[in-house]
């Protein structure tokens, strides 16, 4: 217990952020005059105190005398009306506190011990007359009760004594041991264990859901009956992790109906890849697919590139900042954990959230208890999470998108992806292969283990106890990860110091060690050796904890000294926690006793098989019946302001997209700065090649036609890359299914249709899947303001990410119109396909025909586009997607800050022609001198609409003017919705 506690407060003399911060909160509706911010460090020591002089030295180390002042054990004085202090709850990662602690340690040359720490907090000094309700709302906007502690004082209460010094240490008492669990129970009782968890003998409470169904529990019971003993809690928790939907993807693996006996994954995703690889023969681009933490394709003769896209949905619903931060640094580890370690070189993000201008009244509990976070809070939180995670890790984050839909209010979808690069071989050995051997030591590297993330994002009863660590959510520590990422990928890998590596993600050590144990044929773990954040954790908790920033490695005995020495020099904590074996068993010891001893075959393959049944959804929607306006000016501006079309540039500029020096085509392009659907990045210095990335996502098509929805996503992802000059035959795909209610036959039918679309699209385009992930239950179940039960399910969502290799980035094409006089073409055919379109969403109509795709024709067109781009006769190219041709033309014009004079063909209603989201189309501008060459390549597939020029965007149909708008007004509209972010 700390005996000496001191509080250092640091404040800017003139805070440059004050106007922006104040303005931001005023725009959220708080009547503030000013909102000041003070950084607080609370230093708690047990063995020694600091003298006043030493505390001043500490204050000087933690502040900058040029622009800041600090006070020691004395409240900051300022004119204000109330003070709100926001700190962390016990056990929440406190990065600023840790840095302050290290600085003090370095300065005085001593180490903080057990029960000693520095805690950071932020003190907001509020000037303004806030009502108690307003103050409560402000507090809710500044803090998240799941991770933060909040203390509020009025000016009178604050006077003279300031805020209390709070030290949120974790206090856990009893030393925990493993227990056994009796599974010889009636089914009802057994099912309860599966749903609510093991009954904790100490607390008398359930430990949280195992998510095991009755069939699985029977299989486990029968296994242990044969062994003649009861399972321990460690074994049961471990099996629950390994068999979870998250790890085993049962829905994609199980037989479905009569036509998919091998399951959707094998039948649609893996089979598509196998077919494509076989057909491509020697031109196969795949190096590693589906088996490792990422997928990998050939980059050039010396390098390969990896890619993986993950989701972090549930954590982001509860703590958007922490959820998104751990999402991005987590998928970075899928890169570091690929093969023997690839270097993360590009980050990818994607956010599906509710409309941030709405505040739906939804609650997790009855009687308006436990409200959901409002969409804006979630949106800003996830944006900031990837900001901190990506930026601090030194990985550029150029590629991403946002999608807004009311059905994401209960559960946002947060996609995070990473591309990695690695040499193909080292000393003649391929780097993408790894193999732990019997006798290799199991080494855990990185952060320490706490109760973080145990049982995922469930509300545990413990969270209500003020001294209990937070378990439901986690905040990442990107610097701890950066330290081990650097030493592993830039040093240890090339010194050949380990034989295998994987990341600790879902299921923590229980999954990472058991997964690697497959390579050697077994493992023997000494759980007492695992370094903990605080004492008092039970063995099952240590084994399944999802504490962040950890890797597990297999280090040969003869290299262990060199390995540990290198980690020590880089100040990276590394601990030998056991040994890989060839016993065929996963054995775990704790306190000298065996707490787990399960056969690897049962652990990995003992899961009972399922057979899923689907039920077709007969969706019939009438074709829309609204008149076409005479002029489309207002529609154009309204469409440019739609959140799924307008600029979200504030994200692009907050995310460093230039670090590592490979920026070629970034997230915003042209003088008018329009967000691009595809980006191009160099990842190997000196090479002419680059990595192109794009994405496709059409959740608004899903309920209408899930098969076509999947084709649309595949086509958009591929077309985005083709438009910048990436050839089709270098492109690989990644699939992320985020479904809802996947226990309902109708949802499973939609899933099957989408998966069939995935197979057809990939095979016909000859673009293999290299990696994928699914998240099947994105449903919110709660209550409305009147305590009526409410279920909000996300629209079935499929994200297709495309990665391709640009052969020569100097031939790449950006999206902005270039020069007056250039010709404007649409390449590809436009049909009457408004189903699920942004236009119909704008009109509030659900229905219509979802765009279809003739892939054979599209493929020929895309190959011609690559040819034209290689020949240098394309000045700009842009794929028409959300918002149709008009949104595409407008974006190309705004990006070039150039007017256009266009005439659309007759034969179709102008609004249908301009807003139809027909697939396969590009808007292209061409220099007049290249007209002949261009038209020779495309023939009748290229439709000349007009030319670039002036400062007005004009669209006519025959003699009739449809639109006449200054480009400036369009740019203003395009950038308006998120202007205040």
């Amino acid at each position: 217990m700390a005996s000496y506690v001191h509080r250092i407060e640091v404040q800017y003399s003139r805070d440059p952020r004050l106007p922006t911060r104040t303005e931001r909160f005023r725009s959220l509706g708080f009547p503030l005059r000013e909102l000041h911010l003070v950084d607080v460090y609370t230093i708690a020591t047990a063995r020694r105190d600091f003298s006043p002089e030493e505390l001043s030295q500490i204050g000087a180390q933690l502040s900058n005398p040029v622009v800041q002042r600090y006070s020691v054990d004395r409240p900051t004085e300022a004119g204000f009306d109330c003070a709100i202090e926001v700190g962390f709850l016990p056990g929440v990662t406190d990065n600023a506190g840790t840095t302050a602690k290290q600085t003090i340690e370095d300065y005085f040359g001593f180490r903080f011990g057990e029960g000693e720490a520095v805690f950071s907090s932020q003190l907001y000094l509020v000037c303004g007359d806030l009502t108690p309700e307003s103050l409560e709302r402000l507090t809710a906007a500044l803090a998240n009760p799941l991770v933060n502690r909040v203390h509020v004082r009025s000016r009178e209460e604050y006077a003279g004594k300031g805020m209390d010094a709070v030290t949120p240490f974790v206090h856990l008492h009893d030393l925990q041991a493993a227990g056994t669990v009796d599974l010889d129970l009636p089914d009802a009782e057994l099912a309860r264990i599966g749903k609510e968890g093991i009954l904790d003998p100490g607390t008398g409470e359930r430990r949280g859901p195992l998510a095991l169904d009755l069939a699985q529990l029977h299989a486990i019971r029968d296994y242990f009956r044969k062994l003649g003993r009861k399972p321990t809690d460690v074994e049961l928790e471990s099996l629950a992790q390994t068999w979870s939907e998250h790890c085993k993807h049962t829905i994609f693996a199980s037989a479905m109906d009569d036509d998919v006996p091998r399951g959707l994954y094998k039948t649609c995703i893996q089979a598509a890849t196998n077919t494509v690889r076989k057909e491509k023969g020697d031109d196969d681009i795949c190096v590693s697919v589906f088996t490792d933490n990422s997928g990998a394709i050939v980059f050039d003769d010396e390098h390969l590139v990896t890619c993986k896209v993950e989701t972090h949905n549930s954590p982001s619903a509860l703590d958007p900042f922490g959820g998104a931060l751990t999402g991005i640094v987590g998928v970075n580890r899928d890169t570091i954990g690929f093969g023997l370690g690839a270097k993360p070189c590009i980050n990818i993000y994607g956010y599906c959230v509710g409309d941030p201008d709405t505040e739906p009244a939804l609650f997790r509990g009855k009687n308006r208890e436990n409200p959901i976070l409002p969409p804006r809070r979630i949106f800003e939180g996830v944006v900031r999470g990837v900001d901190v995670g990506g930026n601090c890790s030194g990985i550029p984050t150029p590629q991403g998108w946002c999608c807004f839909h009311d059905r994401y209010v209960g559960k946002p979808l947060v996609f995070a992806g990473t591309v990695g690069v690695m040499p193909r071989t080292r000393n003649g050995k391929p780097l993408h292969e790894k193999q732990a051997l019997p006798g290799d030591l199991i080494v855990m590297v990185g952060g320490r283990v706490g109760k973080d993330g145990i049982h995922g994002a469930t509300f545990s009863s413990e969270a209500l106890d003020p001294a209990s660590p937070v378990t439901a959510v986690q905040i990442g520590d990107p610097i701890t990860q950066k330290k081990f990422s650097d030493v592993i990928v830039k040093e240890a890998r090339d010194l050949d110091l380990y034989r295998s590596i994987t990341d600790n993600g879902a299921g923590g050590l229980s999954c990472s060690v058991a997964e690697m144990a497959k390579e050697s044929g077994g493992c023997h773990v000494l759980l007492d050796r695992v370094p903990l954040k605080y004492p008092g954790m039970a063995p099952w908790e240590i084994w399944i904890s999802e504490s962040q920033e950890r890797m597990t490695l297999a280090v040969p005995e003869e290299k262990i000294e060199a390995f540990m020495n290198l980690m020590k020099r880089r100040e990276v904590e590394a601990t030998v926690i056991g040994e890989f074996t060839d016993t065929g068993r996963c054995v775990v010891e704790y306190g000298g006793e065996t707490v787990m001893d399960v056969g690897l075959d049962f652990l990995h393959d003992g899961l009972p098989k399922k057979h899923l049944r689907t039920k077709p959804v007969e969706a019939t929607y009438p074709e829309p019946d609204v008149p076409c306006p005479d002029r489309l000016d207002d529609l154009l501006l309204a469409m440019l302001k739609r959140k799924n079309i307008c600029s979200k540039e504030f994200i692009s500029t907050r995310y460093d997209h230039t670090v590592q020096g490979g920026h070629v085509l970034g997230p915003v392009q042209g003088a008018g700065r329009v967000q691009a659907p595809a980006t191009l990045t160099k990842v190997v210095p000196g090479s002419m090649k680059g990595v192109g990335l794009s994405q496709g996502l059409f959740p608004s098509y899903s309920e209408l036609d899930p098969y076509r929805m999947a084709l649309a996503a595949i086509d958009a992802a591929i077309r985005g890359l083709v438009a910048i000059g990436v050839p089709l035959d270098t492109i690989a795909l990644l699939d992320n299914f985020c479904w809802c209610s996947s226990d309902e036959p109708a949802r499973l039918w939609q899933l099957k249709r989408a998966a069939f679309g995935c197979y057809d699209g990939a095979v016909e385009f000859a673009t293999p899947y290299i990696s994928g992930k699914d998240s099947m239950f994105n449903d919110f179940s709660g209550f409305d303001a009147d305590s009526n039960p409410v279920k909000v399910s996300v629209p079935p969502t499929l994200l297709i990410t495309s990665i391709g290799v640009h052969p020569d980035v100097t031939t790449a094409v950006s999206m902005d119109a270039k020069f007056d006089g250039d010709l404007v073409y649409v390449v590809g055919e436009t049909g009457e396909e408004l189903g699920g379109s942004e236009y119909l969403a704008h009109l509030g109509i659900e229905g219509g025909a979802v765009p279809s795709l003739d892939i054979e024709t599209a493929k020929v067109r895309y190959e011609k586009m690559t040819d034209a781009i290689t020949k240098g006769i394309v000045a700009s190219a842009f794929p028409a997607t959300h918002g149709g041709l008009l949104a595409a033309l407008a974006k190309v014009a705004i990006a070039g800050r150039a007017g256009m004079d266009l005439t659309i063909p007759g034969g179709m209603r102008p609004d249908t022609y301009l807003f139809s989201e027909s697939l396969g189309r590009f808007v292209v501008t061409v220099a007049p001198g290249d007209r002949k060459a261009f038209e020779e390549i495309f023939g009748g597939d290229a439709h000349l609409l007009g030319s670039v020029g002036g400062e007005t965007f004009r669209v006519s149909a025959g003699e009739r003017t449809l639109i006449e708008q200054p480009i400036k007004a369009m740019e203003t509209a395009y950038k308006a919705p998120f202007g205040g972010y």
Partner: protein
Amino acid sequence: MARAYNARALIMSGYGINSEMETAEALMRAGMASDIVHINDLIAGEKTLSDYRLMVFPGGFSYGDDTGAGNAYANRVRNNLWSDVKEFLAGDNLVLGICNGFQILANLGLVPAFDRDYPREIALMPNRKGVLECRFVTLKPAADNLWTKGISHLYCPVSHGEGNFSCSEETLKRIERENMVAFRYCRDDLSPAGGEYPYNPNGALADIAGVTSADGKVLGLMPHPERAMEFVNLYDWPIQKERLKREGKPLPTESMNMRFFRNVVDYFGR
């Protein structure tokens, strides 16, 4: 392409520094070999500062910008390497800090360093907008010195949350009087940014993007020339390419930003 100079560069790394590889690449392309050295290896004596002529603090997020950008790393340098650094500064050597490196130099007092006491006299405060800003900026040399020689302008990214240059009025006067402002943010036409966003991306006093020490041998620079070494790295390269192509001119391979690194390397080539 590489010229064989005996002088080697020491590029600092560790604790969240992240631009060491592209910085080494830029120096290599300009003709100077370098070693990327973890600060702990310097502290442990496994590498020695005096073996080098150029010390570079590259960009990054050392210690996650906690306790102020560059502050914690600067403390680690001051608490462990201070005498070596002072000795290095006394020799005929150069020190360059880019972005997080500039923040470290400012916290160490290596710029402006009017005297050899190295107090902190300038600060790189949080950006006016309060968030990280990543975008291309145009820089114009504000002094004629070894770093700016022959440069008409640089066009390269800023990417920082804390680059808002600040100091007292007297310090500013002295920095300007002694020609220590190396680069200022400016508009596309090279006229002064006048504090206007986004030309001046962070609110920096007097549009200051980079300053040298009083003796001119230390430079701190917020923007990243090492992130735009090539023509295709420039934000506006697609339209420049289209223009050059139509004028029948060849495309450059390098960007103008390489001149900056050549200047650094040329210093040792006398």
